[in-house]
């Protein structure tokens, strides 16, 4: 659904996005992670044909960005929730959506049906006649998502959809995105909330001007160090460490009375490790596993 090949955008001497190559399948929820100024919004703006590219190519729904004949076609199949929701605060919730429905040439019946559906789904139906300016941040965010969906776009770009929302509003928005996932919308989610990305996204990309990594959250975590097994002992001695190292070429480290072993398949190897530790005179108190979080991966990549 989205294909970018060496997509680059420069502003004078500043490179905002550098040689981005990316493929996103239809129906996929893709999370784009990166610190502020990493180029996430610039990427979305390029893919939405809001700003031009400096070099490279990208296609959205098979249409090429930057190609004059395709730009309008891309705009018809995408929906955008920008970082700032940008509602018409003096207009009612209903009229905000109706206005966008008219832009996308929906009939009056289609507009009425879709507006009612989205406002009911988001719990805003009772407030349809209230000005958007009177809404809370969470309600505004929900209304803006409904606006981006009014024409049933194939690709939905969400730029920081839960930024500045309280936990309850964030959860409502996240749940709504998960509902959309069930409906097979392709969703491009810009966020710096790693927990959100992990919960919602099929795959994530980590961007810092260049794309540093792209994979499923699970595989990214595994790529950092696999799984670490922490063996708490009464005391650690050289014989215990040597016995463990004899079993395989695993990375081991000793912290206090803890022996930490990085193994790729812990379920298979832990019984042997515990056995070897016992035979070497070690007394095992507990065995636990620690898995790297997406945050560990993110911080390692962004700081490197």
């Amino acid at each position: 659904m989205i294909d970018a090949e060496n997509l680059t955008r420069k502003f004078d001497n500043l490179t905002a996005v550098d040689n981005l190559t990316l493929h996103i399948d239809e129906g996929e929820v893709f999370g784009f992670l990166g610190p502020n100024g990493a180029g996430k919004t610039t990427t979305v703006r390029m893919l939405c044909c809001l700003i031009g590219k400096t070099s490279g190519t990208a296609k959205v729904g098979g249409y090429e960005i930057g190609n004059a004949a395709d730009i309008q076609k891309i705009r018809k199949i995408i929906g955008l929730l920008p970082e700032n929701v940008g509602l018409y605060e003096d207009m009612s919730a209903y009229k905000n959506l109706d206005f966008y429905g008219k832009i996308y040439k929906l009939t009056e019946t289609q507009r009425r049906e879709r507006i009612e559906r989205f406002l009911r789904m988001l719990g805003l139906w009772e407030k349809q006649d209230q000005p958007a300016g009177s809404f809370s941040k969470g309600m505004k965010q929900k209304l803006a998502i409904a606006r981006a969906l009014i024409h049933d776009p194939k690709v939905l770009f969400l730029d920081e959809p839960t930024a500045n929302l309280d936990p309850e509003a964030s959860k409502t928005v996240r749940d709504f995105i998960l509902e959309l996932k069930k409906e097979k919308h392709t969703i491009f989610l810009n966020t710096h909330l790693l927990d959100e990305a992990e919960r919602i996204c099929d795959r994530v990309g980590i961007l810092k001007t260049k794309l540093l990594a792209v994979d499923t959250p699970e595989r990214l975590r595994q790529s950092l160090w696999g799984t670490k097994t922490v063996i708490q002992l009464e005391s650690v001695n050289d014989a215990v460490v040597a016995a463990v190292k004899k079993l395989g070429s695993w990375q081991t480290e000793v912290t206090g009375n803890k022996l930490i072993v990085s193994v790729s398949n812990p379920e298979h190897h832990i019984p042997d490790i515990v056995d070897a530790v016992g035979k070497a005179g070690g007394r095992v108190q507990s065995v636990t596993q620690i898995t790297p979080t997406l945050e560990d991966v993110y911080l390692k990549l962004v700081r490197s």
Partner: protein
Amino acid sequence: MDLQNVWTIASKDLGIFLKKKSILYSTILFPLIAAIGLPLVVEFAGQAVGGIPATALPGVIDAFLFFFIIGAASLPVGIASYSLVGEKVEKSLEPLLSTPMTDGEILLGKSIAAFLLPLLAIYAGATIFAAFIDAITRGQLGYFYFPNASMAVILFVVVPLVCLLSVEVLILVSARANDVRAAQQFGGVLVFPFVVIYVAGEIGIINLNTTNLLLISAAILAIDILLFFLSRGTFQREEILTKWK
């Protein structure tokens, strides 16, 4: 260009303007004061010396009609600045720009909204003004002064061109202005050339007759065309998102 899109934008903006009391009142107030106040001046000026002489009346009335041109220069400023800078401040342009609408359709829709409301207010004010003037001066002049060619040129040629000029200037100002008031203050400068023309007419430097009004219109039309191309260049998605302050 899809005119339905243009009207969708224009009607949305008009709907917002009509809800904003500050915009509504400021649009109505000037034409209303001119429509009622200026005929009262004609009625009561020089009472002590028997009023304005019949021979001087046409000159006075024509000069007063020029106030509607000044109104055409000033009224769209408030509306256009809200339409463009207001939308920039509220950050509502980005979602709009991500739709299939073209830059030209958005710009034209906004321009029509900012142009239409002041134009209608001025036409309504001028109609009331003409009716009062006719009622007041009919006895002294022996005929209805309005409608006449001068009024037709002012209302149907000069006023629309000046309204358009005002809107186009505001589009250019919008690219640099960070708030609605700053844009209004800058746009307000536009009134001065017309005040200067009015004063020049009053002190006899130029004669504001129909021919000269048409010449002034031709000059404004040329400026309008120039500003149209400049504003088209300014109102582009990339410019708005990356260069508008």
